C-alpha cells in the first residue's frame, strides 16, 4: 500500500463521524465486521468519500472492498482516472 500520500488520512477523517463505536482505524479495519455499519451508513459514507475525491464508487466496486486499506487503494486508483 502506498503510504506516501494523504489518501489514507483523508479516508480516516471521513470515517470518524460514522465511527459510533470509536473503533481504532487501521488499514485492516473491516467496514462490516469491525465498524458494524448498516446499508444506510455505508451509503452516506460512500457519498462523502465520493464528494471529497470527486469520484464514483459503484455498488459493484463496493462489494469488492472489505477494509479501509482496500478503500484507500481504490480511491487512489479512481482519482488517477
Amino acid at each position, binding site marked *: 500500500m502506498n503510504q506516501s500520500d494523504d489518501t489514507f488520512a483523508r479516508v480516516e477523517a471521513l470515517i470518524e463521524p460514522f465511527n459510533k463505536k470509536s473503533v481504532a482505524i487501521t488499514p485492516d479495519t473491516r467496514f462490516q465486521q469491525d465498524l458494524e455499519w448498516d446499508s444506510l451508513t455505508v*451509503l*452516506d459514507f460512500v*457519498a462523502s468519500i465520493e464528494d471529497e475525491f470527486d469520484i464514483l464508487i*459503484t455498488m459493484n466496486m463496493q462489494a469488492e472492498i472489505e477494509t479501509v486499506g482496500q478503500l484507500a487503494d481504490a480511491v487512489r486508483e479512481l482519482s488517477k482516472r
Partner: protein
Amino acid sequence: MSDLLSKFDSLIEQREKLLESGVTDPFNLVMERVESPTVAICNGKRTILLGTYNYMGMTFDPDVIEAGKKALEEFGSGTTGSRVLNGTYVGHRAVEDALREFYAMDHAMVFSTGYQANLGIISTLAGKDDYVVLDIDSHASIYDGCAMGNAQIVPFRHNDVDALEKRLNRIPSEAGKLVVLEGVYSMMGDVAPLKEMVAVSKAAGAMVLVDEAHSMGFIGEHGRGVAEAQGVIDDVDFIIGTFSKSVGTVGGFCVSNHPKFEILRLVCRPYVFTASLPPSVVATAATSVRKLMHGADKRAHLWENSKRLHGGLKKLGFTLGTDEPQSAIIAVIMPDLETGAAMWEALLKEGLYVNLARPPATPAGMTLLRCSLCAEHSTEQVGEILNMFAAAGRATGCIQ
C-alpha cells in the same frame, strides 16, 4: 457435507424466538374466504383487508369477472407457451392495446408478473458497461434486474435530487445511463420528486425508467401515475407497471414511445423464457384497464379514505411514514419487530389485516405496519379501522 441452508440459521433463530412468544406467525396467514375487495374470512373471523394493494377494488368487478369466465371457457385454462412461440392469443394483444390507450403510448409489452417486467426490461437495457443510477430504496425487482444484466449500479440517497445529479455527472459521458425511479415508494407510501429528477437525468443524457406500480389508476389526471401528475410523462422513456395492484389480477408490463421498443420482445429473457399469462387473466386485465380509464369518482373516494385514515392515525398518536398522505399507502412506524408483531396480531384479533413489513424490505431497518387503502373501503369501514387501531394500540402500549 456442508449444509447450504445453514446460512439462514440466524433468521431461523429470530423467527423461532418470535413465535415462541406465542404471537401468530405474521407471514403465514391464510384467507379462508374472500367476500369482497375489502373483506375476507381469516381464522374463521370476518376481517377488514387493509393490506392488499387492491387500490381500485377491481377484483370483484362484475364486468371483469364476466370477461375472465368467458375467456376461460373459450380459450382454456392456460397457454402452455412463451409469448414468442404459442403463447400469444388475441387476449394478450387486446390487453397490450388497452395499455397503449390507457397511457397514450406507442408500445406495450406484457410480462407474466410485475417482478419479471422490471427484471426483464432493466437487465436487457443495461448491460455490463452501462450504468444504472437508482434510488437506494428501490424495489427488489429493480436490484435483481441490475444484477441479472451485470450493470454498474450507482445508488443515491432516497428522493435526493442533488445526490442523483452529482452521481450522473461523475459517470463517463460516453457510457450508457439508465435512471430508475419509482412513482410511489411502497414501504413508506411517499412520492418521488419526478419533475426535478427527470429533468436532471435528461440533462445528463440518461434514459429514464419509472416504476408506477403503486400509482396506476388513481394518481394523475388519467391515472397514469406520478409522472403524469407532475407533468413529465412525455420525458419518461419507459414506464413499468403491474396488473396485481389497481388492475386486480396478476401480470406486469412496460409501455414506451421508443421507436425500437418492439425488438425487446426477442431479446428480453424473462419475457421469452417463461409461459405467458392465462387467457382468463389477460381478459380480466384488459377489461379492468379499460374501466380504470373512467374511474374518476372512485379515485376521489380513495383519496378521501387516505386522508381520513392518515389524519385519524396521526391524531391517535401513531408515528407515520409521511407527514401528509401522498398515496394510498400509509405506513405506521413501529419501535421494533416484537412490538410490530404484537400490534399486528392485536389488529388481526380486532378483525383487521395490515402488512407487517420488516428488513430487508424496509428502509433503515424499520418495522412497519403498512396499510393500503381501497376505493371500495366505505367511509364507515375507515371509521371501524380507526377504532381497531385505537384498541390494539392501547392494548399493546403503542399509544396512550
